[in-house]
């Protein structure tokens, strides 16, 4: 008899029962929210007669895009093709930005640890300034205050008679491949293969005999000289489409949009400041004893950095470096503020305004970025797991 009320009280306080009840309530609340939102959306769409579904994907786009990496025209192309143009533009600026930001970031990160007081101070000044100014402000500054205040079209700055710089962009001579260029490409590939083979041979020889070979110089010479030689032998089969300045525009050549230049510059400079911090933290994480041990074995500072410090620092550097790369890719969406035709500007901007299908367009855009992020972090997890195995 005495057990029953006790049991009932225990049921109320039983963590398992509570947890089930709590989860049930949570699921119910979320389901209710989704239901309310969905009914509101349906009602809203019916009232405003906005089409739903993804049928718009194959409709004619009817708007122009200033930079297209794949064939695209306002009349003949669809919204789907506009999407791919935007996505490729995003990937282009993100890819180039990652390369530039990595080079600049590593230089500044190492400079911050330099024994040269001035160099270290200048690098930390760079980091502190750039990190603390919003990226959007920097982009607007590069675009509106720097690139847009370049001379007008008719007063273009001209270099070498074929490079025009003005407030509508940079026009370069465009290389035009002539017949006979293929062997140069083949020579380039062969040179890379030869360089890898040489590096492999040099390593084997060093392990067996202890003799070192100048791998870097030989590889560089191979990769540069072999294609150049082939190029000369084949009779320089490369023409250039030189831009010609007309009255109102420049005809021909290869154009770099000021929007693209501003975005690339802004993203690289901003992200480089963060990468510099990541690199600095990674190098500091390598214990001092490693460097001292290397010195006591007679290694000079440069090989010590290359063979001892950097391989160990990379293990610390790579995970946050990846998240900086992801940040750069996501930040490239700020292109919309200066009118560079990236995914957000083309798709979430123009396509959304023309079709009015906010739900579908925003969902697709988010899905794209989400896919990039999740794939990268999955790759990161695999990398981390392999790195962890290397340790004891």
């Amino acid at each position, binding site marked *: 008899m005495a057990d029953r009320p006790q049991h009932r009280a225990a049921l109320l306080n039983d963590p398992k029962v509570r947890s089930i009840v709590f989860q049930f309530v949570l699921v119910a609340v979320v389901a209710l929210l989704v239901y309310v939102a969905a009914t509101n959306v349906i009602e809203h769409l019916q009232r405003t007669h906005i089409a739903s579904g993804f049928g718009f994907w194959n409709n004619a786009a009817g708007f122009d895009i200033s930079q297209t990496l794949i064939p695209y025209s306002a009349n003949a192309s669809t919204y789907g093709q506009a999407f791919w143009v935007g996505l490729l533009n995003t990937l282009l600026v993100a890819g180039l930005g990652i390369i530039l930001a990595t080079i600049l970031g590593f230089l500044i990160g190492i400079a911050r640890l330099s024994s040269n007081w001035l160099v270290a101070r200048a690098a930390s000044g760079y980091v502190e300034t750039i990190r603390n100014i919003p990226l959007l402000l920097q982009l607007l500054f590069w675009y509106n*205050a720097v690139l847009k205040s370049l001379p007008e079209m008719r007063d273009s700055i001209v270099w070498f008679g074929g490079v025009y710089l003005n407030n509508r962009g940079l026009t370069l001579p465009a290389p035009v491949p002539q017949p006979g260029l293929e062997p140069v490409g083949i020579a380039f590939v062969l040179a890379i293969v030869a360089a890898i083979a040489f590096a492999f041979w040099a390593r084997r020889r060093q392990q067996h005999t202890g003799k070192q070979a100048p791998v870097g110089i030989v590889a560089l010479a191979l990769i540069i000289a072999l294609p150049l030689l082939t190029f000369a032998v084949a009779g320089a089969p490369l023409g250039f489409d030189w831009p010609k300045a007309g009255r109102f525009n420049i005809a021909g050549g290869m154009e770099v949009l000021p929007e693209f230049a501003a975005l690339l510059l802004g993203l690289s400079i901003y992200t480089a400041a963060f990468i510099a911090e990541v690199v600095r933290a990674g190098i500091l994480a390598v214990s001092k004893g490693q460097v001292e041990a290397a010195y006591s074995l007679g290694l000079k500072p440069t090989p010590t950095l290359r063979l001892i410090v950097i391989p160990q620092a990379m293990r610390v550097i790579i995970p946050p470096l990846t998240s900086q790369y992801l940040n750069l890719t996501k930040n490239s969406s700020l292109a919309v503020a200066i009118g560079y035709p990236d995914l957000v500007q083309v798709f979430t901007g123009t396509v959304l305004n023309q079709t009015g299908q906010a739900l579908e367009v925003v969902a697709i855009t988010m899905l794209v970025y989400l896919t990039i992020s999740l794939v990268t972090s999955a790759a990161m997890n695999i990398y981390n797991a392999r790195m962890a195995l290397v340790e004891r």
Partner: protein
Amino acid sequence: MTMAEGDLAVTELHFVRHEQLPPKPPPAHMRGTLGWMRENLFSSWFNVALTVAIGLLVAWVAVELARFLIIDAAWSGTDRDACREAVQHRPIGACWPFAFERMPYFIYGSYPIPQRWRVDVFFVLLAIGIVWLMAPRAPRKNWGALYFFIVLPIASFILLHGWELIGLPAVDTVLWGGILVTIVVATVGIVVSLPLGILLALGRRSRMPTVKMFSVAFIEFVRGVPLITMLFMASVMLPLFVPEAFEPDKLVRALVGIALFASAYMAEVVRAGLQAVPKGQYEGAMAVGLRYPHMMGLVVLPQALRITIPNIVNTYIGLFKDTTLVYIVGIFDFLHTVEVARIDPKWATPVTSTTGYAVAAIFYLIFCYGMSRYARAMEARLASGRQR
């Protein structure tokens, strides 16, 4: 004689010092400014070249900045003529009269001029809350938290938006602008994201599968997309989700987007703090019979949050910079007012844009750098506490 000589020899040998000699100063070329420079700037030929190159670069940047901001700048005037080289017959740097004239617009946006005292009061109330919470020695932190997270938001809303009953005329959010909006967005971001972030972090570490699943899905989703798409979602999709009668105004939509975005990042910061609390603390709390809310509220969270303060501040710096993105969805934050002011024909000169951006850069630099110094000081404080 020989003995005496020997004695003499012994006494003469007795020259060993009893007291230590003071260490000799280092050689002259290693001392003072010159030695320091030799050590830190010119230790090798490579370093000499580096010092000269970087020195020239730094000097060039410094000279250009000084010329633009001070030496060549125009300091007084009433319209664009003050800042035009053709009129002034000299090179012109920054156009400060433009910045001075537009300063009220930069601070208050289009907030009605007779009502601007309300914004000032809001700034003061906010400053009290921030100092209360952030100063390490301020008393009664729990009251401070109550003030900052509950009293301040309500009071600010009444103050800024207006309440006819107590004689404050309503001011539509369309009129809000400038630094006011930047501060409002950043404050709402922190006031919402900290509690929500704590809940999400607890949810992510929860043993209940659905709670964990929802938290992880939300956090990973938000962290995987750019803020700008969150803002687009908030501004174009949110109105579809709610009945037409409750359609939120533009500022509220942007605030929802920012707050949700910041919560996901805050959740990860708090989670790191929760993981840093030793397991014994959890076990100890359970052993003395505390329930989950008490264990978290009284034992774990106070420790976790204390060690997370530097990271919270760093996340907040990111949030503060990210508030500029509301410009893209049409909110008149500080950067947007600068963008509007710089294309005003009254001040149309080649230097107006750069001047506007310089004002904005100085504003963000001061705020963000100040906060990062605070974060670093807190880190040092915490480190010294742990180094016993």
